[in-house]
């Protein structure tokens, strides 16, 4: 069953997607599933293992389940400092 999710993109992911936020309907179970589907859709090249994800403003891991209505934040490789 598909879930309605709000996806937020940052830095290079925003440039790949051409937008900073979108609402999508996806058949997914985990944050990793979301990454794989949208990564391919937007032509991103960064490896999942180097990226991070947050669900509803809490850092999560790629195995974390996503629920209908969640906001998923996709973070490309970080480079602070």
């Amino acid at each position, binding site marked *: 069953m598909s879930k309605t999710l709000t996806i937020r993109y*940052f*830095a290079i992911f925003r440039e790949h997607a051409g937008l900073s936020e979108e609402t999508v309907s996806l058949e997914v179970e985990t944050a990793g599933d979301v990454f794989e589907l949208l990564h391919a859709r937007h032509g991103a090249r960064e490896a999942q293992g180097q990226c991070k994800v*947050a669900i509803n*403003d809490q850092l999560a891991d790629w195995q974390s389940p996503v629920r209908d209505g969640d906001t998923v934040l996709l973070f*490309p490789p*970080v*480079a*602070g*400092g």
Partner: protein
Amino acid sequence: MAMLNRMSVADQAINPEEMRATLVDRAAGAYASFEGWIRDNNDGHQVQRLEYEVYAPLAISEGERIIEGAIQKYSLLHARCVHRIGLLEIGECAVWVGVTSGHRDEAFRACRYIIDEVKHRLPIWKKEFYVNGDSGWVNCERCATHARGDFASV
């Protein structure tokens, strides 16, 4: 509440002297700080300026966790960190870390620990603008192994 702004993000120049003054404590025998500056070159490119993007809600909450961890791990008296956001010119201070403790060893080690964790864990990205007109997100468009090596060697 002081605990809530041990980690902060700033859209104006960081003033290290002001930051240092917030850590003063009669019980402290050591103060160590680190400043990360914008340099004019990276990976063979001549850099003109740099832009930081920060997702502040999580940068602050995760930064607080890092600082709390450092205080416990190194028995610090105080610790703070501030990271810039927005466009920065060469020579500007991009990040400042300061700690106080009873003795120097804990202060040096904690300062290093905090900056290393900040670089790895906070949702912060930097885009370099080069003298030749190109630009690029650091750790993204080059290659994945470069990013890993960069993290490991810092």
